[in-house]
């Protein structure tokens, strides 16, 4: 019953999002595709947030995924989007698996700051490597889809549908994970870690899993973002990029999966319009928006749904 409901919602979400490929104007479809790609990264943070950890360095995997795709595409002429996504996800899986158990020992602000330091080391290293463009970064050619090489609007549509499908798959998997035994342990960790340990579960393992999952999502998000943008630079790993992901995660809250993507789209829109209408004070506008959200929705957008649902019952 639960599962079929979930599948139904997944299909519903896909249908709604995919409809965007028809009604959205070009600029908005691109904005949505970018927002959804970043949303994937944020989904990884939300997974960790359920366990009470917030990574301030998710830019590490976003950047790693993007550079993996770009370097593979540039050196071996691979342009297939499926292959590139798989490769980046694989690299991020390995790196995440290496750092995950190490970081799982840390909590709260230390976890946040250490993950931030890791991504800043990647930022610094890439900035130094002038043979791959240094701070100026690299370009990547448009992707192909199993041999099909679209251009213009069809390319944007294909990318958009691709990221939509990934979003729905990742979101569904995340939901299944949330409702699984491990997922519930994660949630319990958020409330009280010690109790969970006394009950015989390993907090460290759970945290490592969510971290690695977040790493893979980060890599996938970075790959799609770079394919949409056509350009990657070390800024992908800078702390302000990671800060933006955290903001989306906070805006969404840890209660609802779709809320993450709604939050990501809202942020992109706010930024894009404030940039145009207040070119001199867009940071001010963004900051006020941030504060307003934090003050008015302390548990994120997801809490809106949760609250209504509780009212109903």
């Amino acid at each position: 019953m639960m599962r079929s409901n979930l599948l139904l919602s997944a299909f519903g979400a896909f249908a709604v999002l995919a409809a965007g490929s028809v009604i959205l104007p070009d600029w908005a479809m691109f904005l949505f595709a970018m927002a959804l790609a970043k949303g994937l990264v944020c989904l990884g943070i939300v997974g960790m947030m359920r366990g009470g950890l917030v990574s301030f360095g998710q830019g590490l995997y976003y950047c790693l995924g993007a550079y993996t795709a770009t370097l593979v595409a540039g050196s071996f002429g691979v342009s297939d989007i499926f292959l590139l996504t798989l490769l980046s996800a694989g690299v991020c899986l390995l790196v995440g698996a290496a750092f995950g158990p190490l970081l799982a020992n840390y909590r709260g602000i230390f976890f946040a700051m250490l993950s931030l330091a890791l991504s800043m080391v990647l930022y610094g290293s890439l900035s130094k490597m002038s043979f791959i463009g240094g701070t100026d970064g690299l370009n990547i050619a448009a992707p192909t889809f199993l041999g099909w090489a679209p251009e213009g609007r069809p390319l944007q549509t294909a990318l958009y549908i691709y990221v939509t499908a990934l979003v729905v798959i990742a979101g569904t998997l995340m939901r299944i994970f949330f409702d699984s035994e491990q997922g519930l342990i994660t949630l319990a960790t958020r409330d009280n870690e010690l109790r969970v340990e006394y009950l015989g579960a390993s907090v460290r393992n759970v945290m490592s899993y969510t971290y690695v999952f977040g790493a893979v999502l980060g890599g996938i998000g970075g790959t799609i973002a770079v394919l949409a943008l056509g350009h990657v630079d070390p800024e992908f790993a800078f702390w302000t990029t990671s800060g933006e992901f955290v903001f989306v995660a906070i805006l969404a809250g840890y209660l609802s999966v779709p809320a993450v993507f709604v939050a990501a789209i809202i942020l992109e829109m706010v930024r894009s319009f404030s940039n145009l209408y207040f070119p001199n004070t867009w940071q001010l506008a963004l900051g006020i928006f941030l504060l307003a959200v934090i003050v008015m929705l302390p548990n994120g957008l997801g809490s809106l749904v949760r609250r209504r649902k509780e009212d109903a019952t």
Partner: protein
Amino acid sequence: MDLVATILVDGLIYAGWLFIVSVGLTLVFGVLNILNIAHGSLYAIGAYASASLVGLYFAAGGDAVPWGSYAALILAAVLVALVLGPLLERGLLRFFYGRDEVLNVLVTYAVFLILEDVMKLIWGVNPYFVYEPYTLLGDVEIGPLFYVGYDFAVIGAAIVVGLAVWLTLNRTKIGKIVLAVIHDSEMSETMGVNVPRIYLGAFMAGAFLAALGGALTAPMISVTPGLGVNVIIVAFAVVIIGGLGSVPGAAIGAVMVGISRAASVHLVPEAELFIIYFVMAIVLLFRPEGLFAKTQARKI
């Protein structure tokens, strides 16, 4: 003069600056449990305010007594603390006490964004200069090198600031109360401590120290937009190395980073960018919560 001495002198000058910009951050975290990204903005505002004030001082005929410009520098930091301290703490941060640490980081990030543009609205994008205080103390010749006397004054200021903060916390009644609030604010409140006032005082002290850092730096740079963003990361690193909330930790963190950075510039310039993270990684590997972290009881 041999290389080792140069490295030491350069390292200590940088460490003095680092300590001043990071001690306020650690103090605010210790008391309010908020890692304040807007610390960087307060630093930048301190720099702007002192540039304006010193400019005014000389415009009003301060040339006769140029030493007065040092008073203007410090006064600027005081003004920033008096205006922005209550505004940010009473107006905003107090609504977030006891909330998630990371959420609070985001709150201060929002403040940082807002202040970036507010500074631009007040001071514009053109640079401000106040060289007078920088050259007033003359040169110091050490071996074949010249140093500016002002650089050593910054070290002196760092020592004074460090001692003042440490003595206040450990040797005065108010300091004892602050330590009690740090340890357990609820218990302090039941014992009759006016906790909100302590919070306000600590935040204003932190704001003053951030602004002082900016004010003391202003004479040796051009004060331009985007000044704050670079300070935040180094200050964070120093504070994390020393242990969040620890004043001696910030001092030792600053010296470690300062000297390793100087060594790197003189010996392996390519590594300069990484040195601060390297020190941080090494320290956290052995002391996961920094050098002087307060131990916290895990609540069941």
